[in-house]
């Protein structure tokens, strides 16, 4: 099997730096969902190492547009409730965003998050925000400290712009960087959410708990205003993004705006692995500039996801069984446990990734 990657720089220009009591009826009263109160503190904690940020803040502020709804018109879930897997009636092909930590395993359903975009929760004792942007197909986890995040109602590059309720600073989700407000320039601590399906997640984590529809809000969960993932249709299935991209150079590499890539960025670069290609080939690698360095993505068929690592010269080959096992220096490892430095990565629509990271490598 050939593992030769295709790498293309999108743009090489130097550019900008960086009632219920009826007979036979059922009724219930939803608690919570009160309007969010300002939270104290100085805002969310910042990451220790810098994150690739190819746009200056002034440009990003200028490119930020109203998405239609106002601030908090898309309400975050601030008091989420969860149920064990065997108490939830959820189709196997429902999209969920999974977190498996030291002592906590949870699945956040896309059908709920599409109406809220942010859930403020606590995972393994750490206050976090689980976020989802339907227009860019991105699910990302952030530490939030003693504040909570809300939906500003504004978008940049079609991406959710969050705000923290301590300082009202504005944080585009994918960039994980404040572009406006007192915390401008600060970057968030991220954690991985696995974009997968309920059936796969439950199989892998039978002890998982699942976000329920008891959010405190009355919504038509299950009626996705943007389209459908089962099968993929509507906005998710194709066509152009809703708003212009920050940069349109991504079309040169691949003019399929809604194609899913698994994107990773470090301090100085970004790379996108084509997810359908990764499914087919199980291993994708960047060329590393001939130094043996670079990145690789290993396909995990159990969760239908990819894990991204720094290659560091290691020889990695998939085993022949197609079960998501890889040989590294004579030893066999699962896709999610290679003995390499794992890099934070997440699923994204190609237009969103390419729009933000115009000099990204695209590997297919």
């Amino acid at each position, binding site marked *: 099997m050939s593992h030769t990657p295709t790498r293309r720089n999108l743009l090489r220009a130097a550019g900008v730096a960086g009632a219920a009591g009826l007979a036979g009826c059922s009724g219930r009263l*939803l608690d*919570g969902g009160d309007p969010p109160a300002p939270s104290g503190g100085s805002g969310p904690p910042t990451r220790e190492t810098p994150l690739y940020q190819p746009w200056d803040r002034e440009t990003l502020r200028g490119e930020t547009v109203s998405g239609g709804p106002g601030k908090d018109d898309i309400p975050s879930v601030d008091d989420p409730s969860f149920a064990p897997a065997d*108490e939830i009636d959820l189709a196997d092909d429902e999209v969920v965003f999974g977190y498996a930590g030291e002592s906590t395993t949870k699945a956040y359903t896309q059908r709920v998050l599409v109406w809220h975009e942010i859930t403020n929760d606590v995972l393994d004792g750490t206050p976090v925000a689980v976020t989802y942007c339907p227009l860019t197909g991105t699910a990302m986890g952030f530490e939030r400290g003693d504040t909570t995040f809300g939906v500003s109602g504004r978008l940049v590059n079609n991406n959710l712009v969050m705000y923290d309720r301590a300082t009202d600073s504005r944080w585009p989700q994918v960039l994980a960087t404040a572009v406006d407000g007192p915390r401008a320039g600060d970057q968030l601590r991220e954690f991985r959410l696995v974009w997968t399906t309920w059936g796969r997640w439950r199989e892998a984590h039978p002890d998982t708990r699942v976000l329920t529809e008891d959010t405190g809000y009355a919504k038509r969960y*299950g009626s996705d*205003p943007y389209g459908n993932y089962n099968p993929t249709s509507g906005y998710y299935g194709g066509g*152009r993004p*809703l708003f212009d991209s920050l940069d349109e150079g991504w079309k040169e590499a691949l003019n399929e705006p809604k194609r899913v890539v698994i994107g990773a960025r470090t301090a100085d670069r970004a790379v996108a692995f084509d997810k359908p290609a990764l499914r087919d080939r199980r291993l994708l690698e960047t060329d590393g500039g001939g130094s043996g360095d670079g990145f690789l993505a290993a396909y995990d068929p159990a969760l239908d996801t990819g894990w991204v690592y720094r290659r560091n010269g290691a020889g990695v080959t998939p085993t022949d069984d197609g079960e998501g096992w890889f040989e590294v220096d004579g030893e066999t490892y699962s896709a999610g446990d290679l003995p390499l430095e794992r890099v934070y990565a997440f699923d994204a629509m190609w237009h969103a990734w390419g729009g933000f990271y115009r000099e990204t490598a695209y590997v297919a």
Partner: protein
Amino acid sequence: MSREHETAAGRSPAAVVATAVARTRRGLLAALADPVAAAVLVAATAAYALVYAVAVGDLGRAAGGTGTVGGDAGAVSVTVVSAPVTRGLSGEGVALVAVGPVEYLFVPATLAVAVAIGLLVGANLALSALAWRRPAACDISPASGVAAGLPALLSGTACCGPLVFIALGLQATSAALTAIAWLRPAAALLLVASLLWAGWRLDVQSSAADSPGKMLSGM
């Protein structure tokens, strides 16, 4: 014949509007007294509110498979948020009603808009029905009244942004978003204008609501 029955020529705009309002008021009172026209008013209002609810996504097929196992699976379920009055006033949905395969999200603000615009559509159609019912009166096409109510159906829902762009596969722009925000008031203005025009053309003496109406201008 009163001065109202004169043509608009040579009169001030304010006087024309005042006359149109007076004639429209008499026409609507006559329509309410006419069983067919009144039925048209009620049916059109209800139908518009229904279509509006579907258009903005408040009414539709229940997706199912959403609750916890062993949860309510009866033919009817009602879920109400806490503090519904406060939250209803702020524009939020306050209750989700599921009846068999259909569910309805009760958003008081949205329902109020739907009924208001629906009443304007219904009033337009009621005057058309009244004209049709009275041979002495000239026809008033219902088309303009119905057409004027269409823009509001494209205005989308307050929760999810410019869904019409997604539905039509169009690219959204700031200008387009601004235009979308004006669809509902534009529809209301068009409907009021259409209603006044119909009232101007159909002048019905309130004292003779069951007598043939007379066309007094623009014939």
